[in-house]
């Protein structure tokens, strides 16, 4: 049962792209995408911590990369991915308890996830910029 050998071209069931994108479906896809992005993004944290442990030169080099416009954009995107995945995760934890599964509740929670993740991202950066004036 390890590998199903395909000898006949059988029709496949319709997949994602033929459906009208519903908000809960888009949130589900985003949850997986942001999860995968966060997975590889841990390299950013590892690089930052390792540089800090190596010395001032290395630390300033990595901080310089993060301070570059492209670096900032990556960090901003990473912040949003984190917020989106965390709020989406909380939504899933609510669903795990069997609550919030009416269609209108599913749609409301899904929209809330997206709106709050965007708001949270801007809030985090606003506070960060306020703190020191430059990231």
């Amino acid at each position, binding site marked *: 049962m390890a*590998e199903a050998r395909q000898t006949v071209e059988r029709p496949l069931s319709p997949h994602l792209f033929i459906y009208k994108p519903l908000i809960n479906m888009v949130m589900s896809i985003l949850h997986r995408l942001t*999860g995968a992005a966060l997975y590889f993004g841990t390299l950013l944290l*590892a690089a930052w*911590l390792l540089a800090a442990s190596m010395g001032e030169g290395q*630390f300033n080099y990595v901080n310089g990369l993060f301070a570059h416009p492209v670096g900032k954009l990556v960090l901003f995107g990473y912040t949003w991915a984190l917020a989106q995945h965390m709020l989406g995760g909380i939504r899933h934890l609510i669903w795990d308890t069997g609550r919030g599964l009416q269609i209108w509740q599913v749609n409301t929670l899904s929209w809330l996830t997206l709106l709050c993740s965007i708001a949270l991202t801007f809030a985090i950066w606003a506070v960060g910029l306020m703190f020191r004036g430059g990231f």
Partner: protein
Amino acid sequence: MAHRTPLARVRGLGSAKTGAEHFWRQRLTAVANIFLLSFLIWLLVTLAGADYATVKATLAKPQIAIPLLLLVVSGLVHMRLGMQVIIEDYVHSEGRKVVALMLSSFFAVAVGLVCVFAVLKLSFGA
């Protein structure tokens, strides 16, 4: 159920052999990550633009280093479980799947070790 031995039934294991362990660990680390990542965001926001000496001194504090270490472990366990599901969903050839799962585990362990090493080095005097 008729085909299962009483022992298997007592253990509560299905055909996946590991029962709900994957699901449970994913949720356990998810809840932990809510708190630990909130801490990381707070830490990074307060360290925004800070110079090397400040960052080094801050990361060396036990009350900072310990939550950071917890975050690294919880976060990497969580992301390894998540990537496992993605691989199992999309990589259908058995051989490639096993290789991908191994590489994913190597990645998680390597990133985790780098982070833990760095935090400990800062804590124990670099």
